[in-house]
C-alpha cells in the first residue's frame, strides 16, 4: 500500500526531475565556461584557444573565459584538473604528446588515464624548417649532408620529449642519419635560433612556415596529405618516411563531469571545427584540423600512446 502511494507520488516527481535535467542538458551551456590553458599566454595553445573563443560565443551565445595555469610543462594544470568542479563549466586544454610522455617520465601528479579527454580539435604538424638561403633545398640534400657529417647537422626544437624532439628521433632512425637536437624554451625561442643561424635547421611546425613565410622554407611536413597552405611542400610519407606527427591539442574536463555533458561538449567543439571560417583561419596560420570526438577518443589514444612511448624510449626521455 505504502509502496503504491510512494510510487504514485514519486513517479511524476521522477518524471519531472528527468525532464528538468534533460532540459538542463539541452540548454548547456547556460553560462560562461572557464577554459584553462596549462601554459602561459601567447603560446600556440593560447592562440588556438583564442581562435575558438569568438566562434563559441557566436554559435552558443556564451563566453569561453580563457585563463592560464602554467608550470611544469603543463603538468601543474593537469594535476589539478580533477579537483575542479565537474559541472561542465570547467574545461582545460590538453596537449599530446605531453600528457602521454610526462607521466611516463616521473610522478608528475597525474596519469594519462586520469584525464577525461573530450575532443581533439587540431594538430600542428611537425615540419623540417630551414632558412630561405639555406644550402639545403630538399630533404634529400639535408640527409646527404647529415650522412657525410654525422652529428654535425644541428636542429633547434621546442623542449625535450616533445613532438619536435620525438619527430627528430624517429626521423634519424628511419633515415639512418645522426643529427644533433638542441632544445629551446618553446617554439618562439627555437625559431629565433634558426633565423639567427645559430643552428642549421629546425624541427618546428607548419605554423612556423606560415608565420615566417618570407624567411624560412619547409622541407617536409609530417602529415597524411600536403598542407593546403603549402601545396609545394612534400609530406614525409611521399619521401618514403612513415612520419605523421605533431602537437595535438584538445579539451579535457574534471573526471566528475557527467557523461551527457561530455557528449554535448564534444559536439560543441565539433560544430566549431565544422565552421568554414574557423577552418580557413586555422589553416592560414598553418594549423591542421583533426576531429577526434568523445567516442573515438579511446581508440585514438591507444594508437598514439604506443607510438609516442616507443619514440620517447628511443629518445632516452623515458627508461
Amino acid at each position, binding site marked *: 500500500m505504502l509502496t503504491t502511494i510512494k510510487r504514485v507520488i514519486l513517479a511524476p516527481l521522477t518524471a519531472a526531475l528527468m525532464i528538468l535535467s534533460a532540459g538542463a542538458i539541452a540548454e548547456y551551456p547556460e553560462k560562461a565556461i572557464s577554459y*584553462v590553458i596549462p601554459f*602561459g*599566454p*601567447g*603560446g600556440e595553445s*593560447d*592562440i588556438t584557444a*583564442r*581562435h575558438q*573563443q*569568438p566562434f563559441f560565443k557566436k554559435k552558443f551565445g556564451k*563566453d569561453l573565459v*580563457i*585563463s*592560464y*595555469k*602554467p*608550470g*611544469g*610543462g603543463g*603538468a*601543474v594544470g593537469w*594535476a589539478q584538473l580533477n579537483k575542479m568542479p565537474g559541472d561542465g563549466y570547467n574545461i582545460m586544454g590538453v596537449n599530446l604528446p605531453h600528457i602521454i610522455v610526462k607521466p611516463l*617520465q*616521473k*610522478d*608528475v*601528479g597525474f596519469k594519462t588515464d586520469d584525464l577525461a579527454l573530450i575532443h581533439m580539435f587540431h594538430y600542428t604538424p611537425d615540419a623540417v624548417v630551414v632558412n630561405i638561403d639555406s644550402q639545403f633545398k630538399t630533404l634529400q640534400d639535408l640527409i646527404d649532408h647529415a650522412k657525410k657529417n654525422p*652529428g*654535425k*647537422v*644541428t636542429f633547434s626544437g621546442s*623542449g*625535450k*620529449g*616533445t613532438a619536435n624532439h620525438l619527430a627528430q628521433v624517429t626521423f634519424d632512425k628511419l633515415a639512418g642519419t645522426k643529427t*644533433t637536437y*638542441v*632544445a*629551446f*624554451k618553446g617554439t*618562439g*625561442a627555437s*625559431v*629565433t*635560433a634558426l*633565423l*639567427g*643561424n*645559430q*643552428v642549421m635547421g629546425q624541427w618546428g611546425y607548419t605554423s612556423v612556415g606560415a*608565420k*615566417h613565410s*618570407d624567411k624560412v622554407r619547409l622541407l617536409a611536413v609530417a602529415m597524411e596529405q600536403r598542407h593546403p597552405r603549402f601545396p609545394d611542400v612534400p609530406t614525409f610519407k611521399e619521401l618514403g618516411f612513415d612520419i605523421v606527427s605533431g602537437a595535438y591539442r584538445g579539451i579535457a574536463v574534471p573526471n566528475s563531469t557527467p557523461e551527457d555533458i561530455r557528449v554535448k561538449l564534444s559536439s560543441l567543439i565539433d560544430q566549431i571545427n565544422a565552421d568554414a571560417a574557423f577552418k580557413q*583561419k586555422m589553416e*592560414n*596560420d598553418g594549423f591542421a584540423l583533426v576531429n577526434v570526438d568523445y567516442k573515438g577518443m579511446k581508440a585514438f589514444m591507444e594508437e598514439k600512446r604506443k607510438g609516442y612511448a616507443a619514440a620517447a624510449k628511443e629518445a632516452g*626521455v623515458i627508461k
Partner: protein
Amino acid sequence: MDSLGYLLAALTPYHVALAIGGVVAGTVVGSLPGLTATMAVAVLIPITFSMEPASALILMGAIYTGAIYGGAYAAILLNTPGTPSAIATTFDGYPMAKRGDGDLAITLACIASVCGGLVGALFLLFLAPPLANVALSFGPVEYFWLAILGLTLISALSQGNLLKGLIGACFGLLLSCIGVAEISADVRLTFGSQTLLGGIETVSALIGLYCIPVLIDLVATPDRHLKVEDVSRGFRLHEALDISWRSKFNLARSSVLGTLVGILPGAGGSIAGLVAYSEARRSSKQQQDFGHGAPEGVQATESANNATVGGGFIPTLVLGIPGTPPDAVILGALLIQGVRTGPNLFTEHGSIVYVFIWGLLLATVLMLPIGLLIGRYAYRSIVTVPKALLVPTVAFMTLIGTYAIRNSVSDVAIMIVLGVLGWVLGRFGFSASPIVLGLILGSIAEQGFVQGWIIGAAADDLWGQFFGRPISVGIFAFILLSLFSPLLLSRFRVKRELTGAD
C-alpha cells in the same frame, strides 16, 4: 598617408581615450605586486577582437607601458617590486623613501619612465627594421654571458660582504633549478613534492623575499613605516626636474641600454633594469651612495625598464618574435586579428604600425601627468595609513597577487616560506637581491650554457663557440671590467696617494 596623417589618426578622441584609460589601468595593475603587464594584456584580448588592429595595439601598448611604470610604486614605498622590471628600483628607491624622500623618488621614477619610454618608442619609429637584427645576433652563448654579466652585479649589491652575497646568489641559483627543467625536461629538486613541480615562480619569489620581511619588520618595530614630513611638498617636480637634468647622460645611457636589452627576446625588463643600474653605478662618481638612496639608481632602472616597451616591440613587429612576455600576448592578439607581422607591416600596413607607434608615444607622454597624480595618491595613502591598516592590507594583497600569477596555491605557500626565510637570512646579514639575481639569471645562464655547449660540441669548436663570437667577446670584456675595475681603481688610487705623498 604621410607621417603627419598617421599622427593625426593616433590623436583622435577615441585613441586618446584608449591611451588614457590604458595608462591608468596599467599603472594601477603594475603597482599591485603579482599583477603583471602580461596578465593585464591577456585579460584584454577578448575586448580587442572588435577593435581595429591599430586601436587594439594602442590600448595594449598603453596598459603595458603604464604597468611597467606602476611597478615602481611598490618598489619605492614597500621595498617590493610590483613587476620584476622594478627589482633594481628597490635598491635605492626604498632607502630614499625611508629617509622621507619617497615623494621625490616617485616623481623621479615618473620622469625617468617617460624619458625611457620615449627613447624606446622613437627607436621603434625610426630604426625598427635594422635594429631587429640585434635580436637574431644573440645566440645561446650571448645569453649565457649576459646572465653572467648580470651576476657580477652581486659584488655591488652585497654591500661590503661579498661572501654572503655569493652564498645568497648560489642559493638563488639552486632555487632556479627546482621543478621541471625547461630544456632537458628533467624533474629536479622537488623531493617528490608536487608543490615544487612548477618551480619557483619569479614574481612570487620577489613578493616573498622583498615584501614579507618588510611586513614582519613593520609589525616588530614601533616606528612609523616611512619618515614623513609635516608640510606638504607637492610633487617636488621642480627639484626632480633639476636632478633629472643633471643626470641626463645617465638617463640617455640607461634608455638606450633598456631599448637594446628589450630587443633581446630572452632578456626583458628585469635584466634591462639591472644592467642599466650596474652601468650607472660603475660610471658614477659617487659609487658609495648607490644602495643607500642614490637618485641615479632609481632613474637608471626606471628609464631602462620603460625603454624595453618600445624596444620589445621592435622584434615583435618586424620579425614576429616577441621581445618580452607581454609582447608574446600582443603578437597572439594580432595573429587572431589576421595581421601578419614582418617587414611588410612597416611598408604596406603603415596605417597600423605608425598609428600605433604614435599612439604609444602619446600614451608615454600622458604618463607624466597621470603617473604624477596616481603616484602622489599612492605615496599619500602608504605614508598616512596607520600601520594597523597598512600591514593587513598589504599582506592580503601579497596573497592575492601571488595566487593570481598562475592561479596556484603552491605559489602562495612557496612565497610565504621564502618570505620567512628571507627575513631570517636578513637577520644574519644576507640580503634578498643576490638570491633573486641568482633565481632570475640562473635559468637563462643554464639554458644558454647547455645549448651553447651542444652546438659547440656538434661543430667541434667549443672554444670558438664560447670565446670566438664578437658579441660574446664584448660582453666578456664587460664582465672582466665589472669584476676587476674596483680592484684596479683602488690600486690606482693607492698609487696616486703614494705618489702624492712623495
